[in-house]
């Protein structure tokens, strides 16, 4: 891997650096939850939301708002289990997204 760029040959000034980057860099990721703990909980939490609309804990909701990859996998899980609870994938995801918004507010 060439993971160093000593000459800064591709300086960030040439790239877009806009409100999305500012938001990603400064989002409030407290209360803390690790990716490992998110993975430990994601099955029961997502099932609770999809099956019974159980609210997310603040740490879990904040983690999904601040960690794109865990968010993506939680959404994928919601889609996958939707039919087990007589929902469409879209309905299951809508429940999850609403829960994330509610927990992180």
């Amino acid at each position, binding site marked *: 891997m060439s993971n160093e*760029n000593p000459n800064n040959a591709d300086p960030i000034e040439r790239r877009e650096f806009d409100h999305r980057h500012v938001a990603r860099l400064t989002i409030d990721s407290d209360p803390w939850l690790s990716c490992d703990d998110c993975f430990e909980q994601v099955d029961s939490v997502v099932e609770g939301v999809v099956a019974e609309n159980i609210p997310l804990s603040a740490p879990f909701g904040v983690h999904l*708002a601040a960690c794109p990859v865990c968010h993506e996998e939680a959404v994928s899980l919601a889609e996958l*289990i939707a039919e087990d609870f007589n929902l469409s994938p879209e309905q299951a995801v809508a429940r999850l997204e609403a829960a994330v918004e509610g927990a992180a507010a």
Partner: protein
Amino acid sequence: MVEIEQQAVPERQAMSAEAVFPADEWVERLSMSGPVRDEAIRALHALMIRAARHQVARMPEATSLGSVVRDEIINSAADEATIAVLGRLDSFEGRSRFTTWAYKFGILQAGVHVRRTRWRGREVQLRQIVEPVESHVRSPEAHVEGGDVASAVSRAMATCLTPHQHKVAVALLVDEVPIDVLSERLGTTRNALYKTLHDVRKRLRVELIAQGHTLMGASEEVNR
């Protein structure tokens, strides 16, 4: 040693595995020996194929990989997820359905495989912002507020972060290197990189709030 038959499993067959075993029998059957366990492992593998296929299908970045590579990823991810589930059976506490618990392993493995395959052969640059950023925000309103904050953020990154924090933040949040790719290249974990991001965000927030900037909370999603 677990041996998993390499064969294509139609999705319908995979789904029927849930009906074959009542929820409370999965762990019991997978913990037995002989034909009962073999049958349960085949059913588990079918579940993992379903989860991996679902995950690969929903990832736009998998499209350009082609069907052969996608199938390889699905099968590899299902194999690894099956082994992971079997290795962690003791940790299943029944807080969700067994199938829901197992699916998360298939989703994880497939997602990691796609991200890393997509970036194979691509260089990951770890770099720092060396000068205050000129904003490229386009709307006039955003320019006044967002441009000011963008410049303040780039200055704070240069002064408040360690070189490691700075490079990780730029790679993940500006250059959009997938976290599983960066963790592989750096020989670390998703967990450790997210902790670095958490520390970065805390440092930047403290600095920017001290300067009088208004920052967003977690409710305004940034992860799309």
